[in-house]
């Protein structure tokens, strides 16, 4: 049997099918350009949502690509969720806190998946980093130390962690390469959709500071640090949420765990509240009790900043995460707070009793 007909049928059919499919209209409307090819020397794809998860959890926790050597020189670590990841700049904070003859380096360990500050402290422990300043996000204290991404990352060993990271990167590069040529057909519960090939959100972070240097969306294009497309006043959203001063047992427990973690690492724990205010009906307590979290500072035995003032801050997703310019502004306000030593305890801090129980 000759196989020439196989290769002939294969090549002509592939060519014809690809040609026909490439004529499919991808998403209607304007199609923003794909992001530039990742510059792996300076930054790395930290999240490509189409591939299911992020890479930053594994890279930081398992010290992949010798990231520990970039973490160890840092004097200050920012830990918390994606609010910290997008809301503060470690690079800018380091510059603002530096004085002539004394350079301060900061590193942003804020992570997606709604990660809590405690996981950032675990990253420091795994990388054998102790006796540093840690600025932890108080906004997510009502959730447990570990979210699903953290649990997955902790279950992986070194080979699995590298595999997971390379898998996400390979998937991203494959999608990136085919994006100009082909659409993506998606069958969902509501029928068939034709989308662009690169169909997930990309977050790119800097190796040296951990700061987000690029966020890109298939429909909106690059929206961070510049060109926010759904720009919202955080203050307005914050007002809409209202304030609830109740503190739950869970928050106290998690806060206590955080304090113990910091003590074990010899870390100087400072807490701040990265402004965010998006109502989340599925987790009402998340936003109802934000401001109240500041009040648990005395029981944490930590220095605590009152929330960074929200006036003028803007968000790219309706109040959840700050825009690039607002990140700079919030970082300046945080630095000013640190330099002025305004370690403020919330009003009537003496009464930290569990109201509302």
């Amino acid at each position: 049997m000759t196989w020439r007909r196989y290769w002939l049928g294969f090549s002509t059919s592939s060519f014809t099918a690809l040609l026909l499919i490439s004529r499919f209209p991808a998403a209607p409307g304007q199609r923003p350009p794909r992001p530039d090819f990742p510059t792996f020397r300076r930054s790395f794809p930290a999240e490509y949502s189409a591939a299911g998860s992020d890479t930053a959890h594994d890279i930081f926790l398992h010290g992949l690509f010798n990231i520990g050597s970039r973490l160890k020189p840092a004097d200050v670590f920012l830990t918390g969720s994606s609010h910290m990841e997008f809301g503060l700049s470690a690079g800018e904070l380091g510059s603002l806190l530096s004085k002539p003859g004394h350079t301060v380096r900061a590193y942003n360990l804020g992570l997606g998946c709604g990660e809590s500050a405690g996981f950032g402290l675990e990253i420091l422990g795994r990388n054998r980093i102790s006796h540093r300043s840690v600025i932890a996000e108080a906004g997510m204290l009502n959730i447990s130390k570990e979210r699903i991404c953290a649990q997955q990352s902790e279950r992986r060993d070194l080979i699995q962690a590298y595999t997971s990271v390379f898998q996400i990167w390979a998937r991203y590069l494959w999608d990136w390469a085919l994006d100009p040529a082909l659409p993506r057909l998606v069958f969902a519960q509501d029928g068939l959709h034709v989308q662009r090939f690169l169909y997930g959100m990309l977050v790119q972070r800097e190796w040296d500071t951990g700061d987000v240097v690029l966020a890109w969306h298939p429909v909106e294009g690059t929206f961070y640090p510049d060109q926010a497309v759904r720009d919202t006043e955080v203050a307005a959203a914050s007002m809409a949420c209202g304030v609830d001063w109740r503190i739950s047992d869970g928050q106290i427990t998690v806060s206590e765990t955080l304090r113990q973690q910091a003590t074990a690492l010899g870390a100087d724990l400072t807490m701040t509240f990265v402004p965010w205010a998006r109502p989340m009906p599925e987790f009402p307590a998340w936003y109802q009790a934000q401001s109240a979290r500041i009040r648990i500072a005395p029981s944490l035995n930590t220095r605590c900043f009152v929330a960074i003032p929200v006036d003028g801050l803007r968000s790219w997703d309706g109040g959840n995460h700050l825009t690039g310019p607002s990140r700079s502004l919030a970082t300046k306000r945080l630095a000013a707070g640190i330099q002025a030593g305004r370690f403020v305890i919330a009003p009537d801090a003496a009464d930290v009793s569990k109201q509302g129980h």
Partner: protein
Amino acid sequence: MTYIDTLFLVLLIPLVAAVRYVIVPVRLREWLIIAASVMFLATWGHVSLLVFLSVIAINFAATIGIDRAGDRASRYLMAGMIAADLLALGYFKYFNFFIDSWNGVAGTTLPHHDLGLPLAISFYTFHLVSYLVDLQGRRVRRAGVREYLFYLSFFPHLVAGPIVRAWQFFPQIGKRRDVLGDLPVGLYQFVSGIFLKSIIADNIAQLIDPIWDGTGAFVPTGADHWAVAWLYYCQIYADFAGYSLMALGMSRFLGYRLPPNFRQPMLASSLQEFWRRWHMTLSRWLRDYLYRPLGGSRAGRWRTSINLMATMLLGGLWHGAGWTLVIWGALHGAGLVIERALGLNQSGWNGSRGAARAGWFVITQIWVTLAWIFFRSANLHSALTFLGALGDRSAASMVIHPPIRLAAGFGLGALLHQAFELGIVRMPRRWIPGALGLTTALAGVADVVILAPSKVFIYFKF
């Protein structure tokens, strides 16, 4: 890492290129494949890797003993080693199940082991056991280290089969085969395997999983439930047959042949025929190493029925620790006993009892579909609730909701694949390469452009 991950494909291409075109010495080539297989296993965690290496090291030592010992001593050694292998499998696979059952009965709070299920342990245990039995029976020769490692770790069959016997595989080890058709046929198998798994099975799963999980956006009707049960049949076929085809294709890329695992099971006109078409390598293994040693069908009707039930119950339990899987096995066992009693167990459509056979075909396929409900359900209660919903006879119950209709389109894809495989062997010989080339191209393009909802292989967890 699974066979449909982009990273796996990125690594597979240079491996195949190296094996086929660069590394000439066969031994070096096989050591490279062993290293790739071990690395593949390592991506599933060090526990999986350590358990695998420890188990095969001990088994290899036992094979030396069996080979050198006399008949009686080798028989004891074989039995001891098989018992140890089954004990290891039992510990990892069933310990927590028994602990749960015991805690439930005795009111104790005995703890679980938290090592998880080492990847592929069920499948390599099959390989270990069959090799020990065949070696002790002097049906195969004792393998050297490279042969043994290669046979057991060969990554295309390592995780979920096909279960290949030593006598099928050993003659291929250490030899170079350059067959012209291996690359195109392998490519057809690999690409259509991805199509079955990623496009058919995963899209069906995405559309019907909410019904199984009770999280759907609509209240499913009776017709929806019937359709979902049949679609799960299509899903698990596409998932496992897709995986098996990928394994066969990868094996051909590297110059080796594995036995096929599926042969149009939806055309089976009896349960006996179903098991000759579904997971064929497991069926044969169970027949040769369990059913026949129990006495098979040679010891009278009652004993045959007991042997069938025992084999199918153990087959069900092998799939996992759970009562739903035991019932799935029991349903198949009972069906086999009934059709044997009625004389409907012969395959094929010829003969004077055409109408009875056609009727039994329909009953067989419905029986298999209903049994899958137990296989899929999280627990007995869910399975019985699902079964109850099938009996809804209200007027509204005939409506099939749009997501299920969409999933049915993918289900038809699973049927078409079986029809194509049946048709290709009946096609004039000169048309076959062109038809395969065309199919490979279309399936390949679909693999690229249609989104594959990320789901793990169903049989990886066994």
